[in-house]
């Protein structure tokens, strides 16, 4: 199976008439079995179409015309309007919200995540590329155009969780080239506060029969690697995990932010070296290079090393 999405998942695109959103819509419609995008929302643009997807003014209108609840939403509106758009989705019973938008103030993100918790919904992102179930469906720009996504992703036993959208594809492509497919790959976003951390996604992968191992991409900043290490230890996870840690050079430059907003190193526990230690102590293998990951996974799975 997969986590979060399957072939039947219905979703909408909020901000669908924006340049990136138009591309993203095309990509999702084309990929795998074809995403069921039941509508788009851009206030004031009701009546238009984007690649055949009808555009409405409100989320409620899409639900009306669809004639029932909608599973998810991809939010691609500018940062000043994102909170309102996400609240609109949550208050209309959308249970999975993928926020693509970058540079949203942390307070807004925290408000969205807290409301999602109250509504029993899940947020992925912000500042992420979304979710992909290889050869089935993708929700968000992850992997790019269908043709490109098909080159990088293939179905298989590895769950991928990454704080970098681009590196989700880089790692999956490396796995694919070695004959190791992915069950689901999730770009969780590069901000200091995000809707779903590694530890929050682990129970889903744990419950997914297809998934036999996990690969994560991590960076300095924040405590989510420490949280993952704790989760793995406390829950005696059945899934072997291989991690890759980028941004080691940042340890020498406290207070500077590189790559993603979440990487600013504010305390000793946030540094790359501290995280590597914690992950290793929890039995998570930390790869020195991306290219080592397939062999490390194969080793942890107890199968012969891939070509």
């Amino acid at each position, binding site marked *: 199976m997969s986590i979060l999405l399957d072939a039947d998942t219905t979703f909408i695109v909020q901000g669908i008439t924006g340049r*990136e959103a138009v*591309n993203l819509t095309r990509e999702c419609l084309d990929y795998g079995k074809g995403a069921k995008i039941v509508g788009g929302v851009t206030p004031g643009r009701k009546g238009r179409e984007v690649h055949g997807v009808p555009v409405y003014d409100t989320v409620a209108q899409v639900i009306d015309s669809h004639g029932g609840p909608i599973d998810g939403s991809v939010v691609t509106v500018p940062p*000043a309007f994102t909170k309102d758009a996400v609240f609109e989705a949550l208050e209309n019973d959308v249970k999975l919200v993928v926020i693509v938008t970058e*540079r*949203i*103030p*942390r*307070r807004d*993100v*925290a*408000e969205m*995540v*807290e409301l999602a918790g*109250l509504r029993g919904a899940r947020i992925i992102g912000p500042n992420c590329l979304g979710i992909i179930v290889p050869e089935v469906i993708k929700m968000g720009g*992850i992997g*790019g*155009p269908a043709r*490109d*996504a098909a080159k*990088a992703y293939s179905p298989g036993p590895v769950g991928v969780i*990454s*704080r*970098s*959208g*681009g*590196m989700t*594809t*880089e790692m999956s*492509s*490396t796995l694919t*080239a070695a004959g190791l497919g992915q069950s689901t790959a999730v770009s969780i976003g*590069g901000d*200091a*506060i995000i809707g779903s*951390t590694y530890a929050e996604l682990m129970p889903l992968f744990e419950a997914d029969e297809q998934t036999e191992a996990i690969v994560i*991409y991590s*960076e300095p900043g*924040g*405590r*989510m690697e420490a*949280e993952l290490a704790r989760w793995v230890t406390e829950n005696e996870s059945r899934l072997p995990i291989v991690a*890759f840690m*980028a*941004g*080691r*050079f*940042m340890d020498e430059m*406290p*207070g*500077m932010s*590189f*790559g*993603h*907003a979440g*990487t600013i190193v504010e*305390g000793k526990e946030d540094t790359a070296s501290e995280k590597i230690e914690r992950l290793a102590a929890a039995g998570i293998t930390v790869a*020195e*290079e*991306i*290219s080592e990951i397939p062999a490390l996974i194969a080793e942890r799975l107890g199968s012969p090393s891939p070509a």
Partner: protein
Amino acid sequence: MRFFEYEAREIVKRAGIPVTDFGFARTAAEAREIAERIGGPTVIKSQVLTGGRMKAGGVKFAEGPEEAEGHAATILELQINGHVPRGVLVDPRAEVKQEYYAGVVWDGIREQPVMLFSDMGGIDIEEVAATHPDHVGRGHFSNLVSVSDFQAKQVIAQTGVTGSALTRITPILARLARLFSERDMTLAEINPLGETGDAKFVALDAHMEMENEARPRQRALLSELGVGDEETRQAREPTEFELAGEAVDAQDHRGVAGNVTEFDGDLGLVIGAGGGSLTLFDAVRKYGGRPANYCEIGGNPSVAKACGLAKLVLTKPGVDKIAVMMSIVSNTRVDIVARGVIKACLELDMDPAEKIAIFRIPGAWEEEGFKILDHYGVDYADRRVSLHEAARRAVEKIQGAAASEGDGADAPRVDGRTSGEVTEV
């Protein structure tokens, strides 16, 4: 972005938290005037965006205006950790019975802010938490419902503080928590919060950091404090090279070719995207390379921007070659970046084949990109060459080592290069 102490105290004051009758001076003469107004013993404090002021001699005590002026003159000349002071803060020297700590920070895992309080103020809260955990109170608060005073009271009461101290500090901590939310702070600290001889509580020092992403909506406050848009308040001020990088990125709104950070090496980097840049920078250093810069390309920038960035890096003194590398792209187009970097070389009368140590960007529009690179004889690699392997090759080239005669110590080379093998021209 971090605030100077005099700004942080002003922010605290605006939130209704009592502060001393301090003043900010840019010159020694101004410091004297403030000391005259205060009319008693004063403390003169250097205004720098770095810690360790006391140790470095950036905080001095004066009995009267004359001494205040003298100390101010000394402190204004004193660099601390390489920072030249913006001015001095002149503070009445208060009779302090006890020092407390009040602070608010984000808890990224709980996704909520957390109030912190200690009756052991004046020292680092992390130190207190480690050595005297029973003297630190803490409590999270909702992002959706405004903080109520009782929540602050509960946090303070955890440390055993009671009586009038509890009732008087409660509104101060609650106001600090509201300020934290309303002003988009990532850190709001009053340390120490002083209990004066007359049983009043007053902020004796404050430390505030605001989230950069929130600066646009906090513009009114920032302009009232006199903080200009050009002040990045990063850990260090941007260099000329970095400012030129910002100008390149600002020339149009298509994608990103920015976040340029200066280093002092000889290998120029034109790299992306967020995570790819972090990985590649590490990789170059792992193989003994010395990067001249850090940067990020992403979101499909225009040819002009890619060209501008490459030109900036190519003309940086000490740069011999550039490495153009990204993790697999799905939005950014390979051919556009290829065009941009080749155009940069040509416009600078440089040979792309010689100046571009390696081009490793696989992904969207790669066939078109590789054709262009073939045409100019640029060494390129597709996704079969890992990020680390690409970085290793670039370092090898710049160090002048024979590209073809490796010692075999590194990972086996997966060849994805050489024209004709990869793509037909």
